């Protein structure tokens, strides 16, 4: 099974919970965004608790949790936005 590396980003409150803003994560090519989140949530229960208010993006577009991730993709986990 081919393994690929995705760039994973956390912002705002999530960045503080996870303790990193950027990480490189190895995953099976085509795995869902959901699986990446589960990996970090397992290490950080507080992140898991925020699951329902987190939105994901892939390559700068909002993306559903089922979206497959491929080599070189940039996946970000975004808390509710509060700009303006």
């Amino acid at each position, binding site marked *: 099974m081919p393994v690929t590396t995705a760039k994973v*980003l956390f*912002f*705002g*409150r999530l960045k503080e919970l996870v303790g990193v803003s950027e990480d490189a994560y190895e995953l099976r090519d085509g795995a869902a965004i959901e699986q990446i989140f589960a990996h970090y949530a397992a290490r950080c229960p507080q992140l898991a608790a925020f699951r329902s*208010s987190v*939105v994901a*993006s*892939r390559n*700068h*577009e*909002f*993306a*559903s949790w*089922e*979206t*497959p991730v491929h080599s070189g993709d940039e996946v*970000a986990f*975004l*808390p*509710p*936005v*509060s*700009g*303006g």
Partner: protein
Amino acid sequence: MSEADNSSNDRVELTRSRIVAESYISHVRTPADGAIVAFDGCVRNHSHGRRTLYLEYEAYEPMALEKMREISVQLHEKFAIDRVAVVHRLGRLEIGETSVFIAVSAAHRAPAFEACRWAIDTLKRTVPIWKKEFFEDGAVWAEGELPPPPGAAPSVKSAS
């Protein structure tokens, strides 16, 4: 004109410097315009009854810029407007400073008002920027808004 032509004169920016309103108002002013409506979002000294000391804004910068550009493109599709300028400041902001400035020009005032209002409402829901509020007794991330689900956003591409 194509959509690209309509928005090609727009100005969409993130900045860490003080926002000068006149610069953005001037940018959207052309001889064909009879109306400019501007929105200036600024740092209030209070939030939910607590005294605010200052704010910090952070953004997912490339995505925030793309989402802001999408807003400017959509404005041209939805409203009879001429030019758009949108800028959001990042980093530490003091009370009274401008965090976001939007200016829209049009031949007539109704679309200028409607487009400017739609732009700030949409920015606050869809642009990945976050505000941390610093109070005398600590700091909190502002309660934010959930972006629309991916399927609902017209610009989201299929994941294939």
